[in-house]
């Protein structure tokens, strides 16, 4: 079966690349082995962890040349950030972002964290004018969100934070039964009148506060339950991510996939690309586990297979490798040097990834493949925890590659 572009991996980077290409009418295939890390992510995307008032342009200057952002270049990144905002908007996903600088969200530990783009129901205020009095509303028996943690974190930042615990009949039923009391289960039980009654219970606790924070357990499929919840509360409010799985993350995954399919894209779930055929410096076709002998042909092949967690990279005591084609990988030292014993220190393995040139083309045995690219967490050189570039690398590398493919096709 023939496609214009084949994308391996259906996480954030694969989907954005696919959507961007399909928006110009290209015939795209995405093959994805299982759900991606988007299902665990907060629903907020980081670009760079720079302080308030520091522009992205300034912060970019301090990155090493091996970082994907350095390869893409500051001017491109500026344009691509604007493009990303448009893409989410056309997909009907309300994201808040500023192409120049960060805004702030509150983590499950009550710490303020800089973000570039976030679902509009996540926190957003500037670090300087935090509300004076905040109510953190927890849900009875729900251990994946700890209201006291959030409150004590906020207190350290000088906020007068108080805590309450609420429940409704639907949640009591869920808690008392054998099924798990996890975020996704809660989100399914919480719709319609259950939301209204939960809002009432929270309102009863909130006469003296300026702001309400509550766990992000609304709206697995779309944003309707979120809107309903926020509109029923007496005070302005925002949602805070819970422990995995992440309800806003699952929603993002579903909405992006829906957009890709609506544009005519083909998304095969639960299948694994096992091999690719290389001829004269190009990838001709790929094969998957479920489709056996069927060859999928394409003009371009994009590797969006993620990092170790998603099996985009694999490690043995001897080597780190890319499992589909054994693409060239950037990593250094031997097994003992890959990890840092101190879990809070920079972990070398997190910057390992597939080697690319400045256009993000991959290489095999030192030779660049003309029509094959890498995007997202699979790329080498990002320093996710240190520079806080998690989601940004995925989004912007995907749009960068899509842009080059579209330009070449013109």
């Amino acid at each position, binding site marked *: *079966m*023939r496609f214009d572009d084949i994308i391996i991996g259906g996480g954030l980077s694969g989907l954005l690349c696919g959507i961007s290409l399909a928006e110009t009418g290209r015939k795209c295939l995405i093959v994805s*082995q*299982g*759900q*991606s890390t988007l*299902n*665990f992510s907060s629903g907020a995307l980081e670009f760079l962890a720079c302080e308030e008032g520091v522009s992205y342009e300034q912060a970019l200057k301090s990155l090493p040349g091996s970082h994907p952002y350095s390869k893409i270049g500051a001017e491109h990144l500026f344009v691509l950030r604007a493009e990303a905002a448009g893409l989410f908007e056309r997909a009907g996903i309300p994201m808040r972002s500023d192409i120049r600088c960060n805004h702030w969200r509150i983590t499950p530990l009550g710490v303020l964290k800089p973000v570039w783009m976030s679902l509009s129901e996540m926190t957003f205020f500037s670090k300087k004018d935090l509300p004076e009095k905040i109510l953190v509303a927890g849900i009875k028996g729900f251990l994946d969100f700890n209201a006291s943690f959030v409150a004590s974190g906020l207190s350290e930042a000088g906020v007068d934070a108080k805590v309450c615990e609420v429940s409704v009949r639907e949640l009591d*039923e*869920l808690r008392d*039964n*054998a*099924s*798990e009391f*996890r975020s*996704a*289960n809660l989100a*399914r*039980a919480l719709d319609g009148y259950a939301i209204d009654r939960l809002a009432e219970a929270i309102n009863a606790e909130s006469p003296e506060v300026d702001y309400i924070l509550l766990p992000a357990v609304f709206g*697995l499929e779309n944003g309707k339950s979120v809107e309903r919840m926020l509109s029923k509360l007496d005070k302005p409010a925002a949602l805070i991510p819970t422990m*995995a*799985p992440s309800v806003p993350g*699952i929603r993002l995954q579903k909405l992006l996939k*829906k957009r890709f*399919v609506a544009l005519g894209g*083909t998304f*095969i*779930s*639960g*299948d*694994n690309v096992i091999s690719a055929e290389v001829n004269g410096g190009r990838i001709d076709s790929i094969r*998957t586990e*479920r*489709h*056996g*002998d*069927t060859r999928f042909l394409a003009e371009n092949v994009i590797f969006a297979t993620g990092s170790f*967690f*998603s099996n985009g990279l694999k490690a043995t005591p001897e080597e780190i490798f890319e499992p589909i084609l054994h693409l060239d990988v950037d990593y250094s030292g031997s097994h003992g040097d890959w990890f840092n014993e101190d879990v809070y220190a920079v972990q070398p393995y997190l910057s390992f990834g597939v080697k690319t040139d400045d256009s993000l083309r991959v290489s095999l045995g030192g030779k660049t493949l003309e029509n094959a690219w890498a995007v997202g967490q699979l790329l080498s050189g990002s320093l996710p925890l240190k520079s806080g570039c998690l989601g940004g690398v995925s989004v912007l590398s995907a749009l960068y590659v899509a842009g080059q493919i579209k330009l070449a096709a013109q």
Partner: protein
Amino acid sequence: MKDHTFQDCVKCTVCTAYCPMAAVTPFYIGPKQAGPDGERYRLKDKSFYDYALKYCLNCKRCEVACPSGVRIGDIIAKAKLDSPSFKPGLREWVLANTDLMGSLAVPFSRALNPILGLDVSKKMMDGILGIDHRRQFPAYAKETFEHWYRRKAAKAQKRFSKQVYYYHGCYANYNNPALAQDLLKILNACGYGVQLLKGEKCCGVALISNGLGAQARRQAKANLAALRKADGPVLTTSSTCTMTLRDEYAHVLGLDNANVRDNITLALKFLSEKVDSGEIRLAFRSDYQKHIAYHTSCHMERLGWWIYSLNLLRMIPGVRLDVLESVCCGISGTFGFKKENYELSQEIGRKLFDQIRDAQPEIVATGCETCKWQIEMSIGFEVQNPVSILAEALDIEETTRLNAARP
């Protein structure tokens, strides 16, 4: 034989977030607990979590979602078969023996169909067997496909130089021979003769899900023997039979099907690939116009083979195609027929029904016969296998001419 993939579980609960049953009832513990978690306990006690396993639809949507490749659905299906306390009753036996019921019913179909539709019969089945009175039983055909084939088609198949086999399954044989006839029509026009397997039996999917393991294994062995004798590709029209023959025999029943597995393929995959490679050419009627909504059945989603149906449907010039979001229709074979499951079954199906109502297609296309029953009964839209749609849209004469002229 144990399925060791349970050890790869990273406890992320993504499977539970995508399970259609966990979505509608708090009484189902969900795939993570019923599957990989339960498997650890079941190493000690085979009936651990038994009370929950009956909820599992075997839809495999958890497996499709799992980032770690855990075969959750297989683990649960096996646990059901191995559990000493999972005892099938008369109703399970009746519902699961589709083959036997079909061969008893077809000779009397003229009398039986109206009776099955009567309120009193429905009430009786409800009261005595626990088969919900709101269900409509799929009608039985007047003549089985096999019988028709021997009478009308067998001889004509011999004149083709290229031959394929057809595993028709119970539905095409007893309920909808027209589907099988449509496939013959297409394949003949494309220059292929169609042979039946010697001694085909029901694939046994309902026996597996109703806990009749020993009978399922007997039938599977008979099918494997028949499949081994086939000296050409074996084509199918049902996504569930296909998945059962290819995957469940090995993963759930523990039988070795390695030497026949790759030879079993959906007819639409076979056709799509031959068309793409230029070995087959199709000509379509210029007056065929249809608005079609495609529904991906659960087992088609697991196979990933819906792409071939879409590829072919998109070739028909007069077709406007809506691809519905892939969700479970709720019937899950015999599950939805049981009285205690009726409401859950309809609640699961709601997401699909709403999508179809929004799209307002003339026909819903799907590769699964039980989805067809569920959709037709619940919301009254006509449902067809894409094979039948293709057969209607093709210009058979022109297609025959195009393929006959070729070497």
